[in-house]
């Protein structure tokens, strides 16, 4: 006979597994449909999962809205570009790079990890200052950080290429590569959420005073979550760059910031599953509407939405979801295997 508490814990442990399987299913479904645009859409969605899960590690656990995470994507993308672009290409496009980086010719995987690593380091340094603030002041400070990174990247021409897109990134990100990163992000996010630090952070989110009274140092736990979340946003940025093949500071600014926020909120900020479901729901909705805009043939008649209507319909749908499910699609719940499943094979699971 297993105790209720142990069953709950095992059920919680199944969440990342179920989510990963869900993503695997999504990739298989997309690939079996056969057209290349669908495979692209699957890869893009999974990159967004990496991004948004990373974003959720901080926002979901701490309850602080961050506007700054797109900047980590920007940093990750450019670090990966600096390390992997052919040296002769860098000499023409980015003449201001320091010698070591200009000569670097890294493999794409360590470069993506380095992208995440540098983003995490920047998060650690800036977070040390910003996270001393609470609530909306912290949010605004992260926004100011985003605007600073964007201004610097758009104008530091010899190193970042300025407003001109950096092109020539190796396009290696297939749906499988993106799936690997997305699963890694989900696993780490689940581990962090279940760790003492994750629990402490959520406790502080629910009741700041009580948590402080119980000896929780909110600042330290926030900083850890911020750094961890920046790592995956940085890697996500690197993936995005190597997915499109072209990077520009503008691609990591307000558009991405709000896309991430919208996905987390639509899915439900209260749970990891919410973050993943939010990405899937919005991405699939966008793809469906885009296809409707192209036109669907029924017999001899073609129905098509007017160009540009996708954005309007999606925005209206988002508002409706927020009105009828203000806590998001998942409303704070996690997907997990039912209790009788995990109780039955308890010995094998843990």
């Amino acid at each position, binding site marked *: 006979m297993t105790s209720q508490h142990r069953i709950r814990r095992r059920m919680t442990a199944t969440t990342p597994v179920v989510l990963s399987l869900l993503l695997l299913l999504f990739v298989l479904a997309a690939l079996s449909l056969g057209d290349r645009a669908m495979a692209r859409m699957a890869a893009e969605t999974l990159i967004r999962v990496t991004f948004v899960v990373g974003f959720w590690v901080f926002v979901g656990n701490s309850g602080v809205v961050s506007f700054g995470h797109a900047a980590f994507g920007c940093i990750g993308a450019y670090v990966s570009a600096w390390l992997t672009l052919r040296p002769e290409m860098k000499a023409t496009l980015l003449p201001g790079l320091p010698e070591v980086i200009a000569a670097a010719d890294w493999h794409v995987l360590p470069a993506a990890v380095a992208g995440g690593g540098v983003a995490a380091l920047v998060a650690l340094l800036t977070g040390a*200052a910003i996270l001393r603030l609470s609530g*909306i002041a912290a949010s*605004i400070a992260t926004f*100011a950080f985003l605007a600073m990174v964007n*201004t610097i990247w758009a104008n530091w021409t010899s190193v970042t290429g300025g407003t001109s897109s950096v092109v020539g990134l190796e396009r290696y990100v297939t749906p499988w590569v993106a799936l690997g990163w997305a699963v890694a992000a989900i696993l780490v996010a689940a581990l962090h959420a279940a760790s003492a630090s994750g629990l402490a952070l959520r406790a502080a989110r629910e009741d*700041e005073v009580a948590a402080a009274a119980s000896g929780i140092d909110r600042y330290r736990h926030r900083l850890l979550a911020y750094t961890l979340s920046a790592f995956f946003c940085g890697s996500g940025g690197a993936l995005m760059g190597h997915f499109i093949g072209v990077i520009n500071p503008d691609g990591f600014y307000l558009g991405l910031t709000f896309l991430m926020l919208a996905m987390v909120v639509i899915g439900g900020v209260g749970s990891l599953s919410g973050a993943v479901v939010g990405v899937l729901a919005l991405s699939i909705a966008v793809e469906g509407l885009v296809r409707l805009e192209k036109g669907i043939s029924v017999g001899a008649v073609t129905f098509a939405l007017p160009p540009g*209507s996708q954005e309007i319909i999606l*925005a209206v749908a988002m*508002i409706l979801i927020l009105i009828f499910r203000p*806590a998001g699609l998942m409303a704070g719940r996690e997907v997990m295997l039912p209790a009788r499943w995990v109780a039955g094979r308890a010995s094998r699971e843990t």
Partner: protein
Amino acid sequence: MSLQLVFDALALGGIYAVAALGIALIFGVMRLVNFAHGQFIACAVFALIVPSTDALAVLGLGALPAPVLVPLILLIGAGLAVLAEALVFRPMRNASPVALMVGSFALGVALQNLLLALYGGRPKAVSLWAELGQPVQIASASVPLLQLIVIAAVAVILAGLALMLRKSRLGLEMRAAAEDFTMARMLGVRSNRVISGAFALSGGLAAVVALVLVAQTGVADVRMGGQIMLVAFIATVVGGMGSLSGAVAAGLGIGAASALLQAGLPADARPFRDAFLYGGVILVLLFRPQGLFAPVGAKPRV
């Protein structure tokens, strides 16, 4: 500091101050950071060329004489905001501040794409009050007439609003609601009226920004208002969330800082102006986390 610089700083700061006030009013009563405010501004701009959608913009409403036009555009701005409140924000009133914010952002996206579908992505010329461009000599400074009008209009609006907030019943209710909304409701403040009132004022202020922008730049563009909204948002927080006078002061301050940096930075650093500006914002927040003019109620419990 030269007199010219004072006028330049006031002109930019004045626009930001009015926009920040529009954001702060709504934040005060319902903790909503309204990201659609920028699109309210854009809609008010495009209202000037209604009903024409031609590539060459024809002033429709904008051709009316100013005494008719100004109240009409203000009404349109206010009406749009009140409509948005009734359709989008009232049904969401129990949602978390983050969900509200995302909702306002979605509303902004919908409005912007609607304008894009109707008017296209090419900016349109709107020659509104071109004669206001005449420079006027004041002591050592030469200032376009419009700049003076902007500064004067901002002063009048702020004074009028302050008077309304202090003297009228709605103003009293709004101030009470901004202090502590739940308590105010318990004491008999009519929440729907207060919130609708705040949205109407905020929309009217968006229309003021729209008129000033059009008179200043002579163009209508669907992306207009976005940058001003962001600065205003920052100003609202730096000023102290919920403090109306704080928002105005911070809006003026950010505009002035931007003008001063533009004037003072060496040429190579000037493209990085905004990085300095936002760095300054972070510093201010670190030293005054509650904002420069935090209302008493904003102090945390610990």
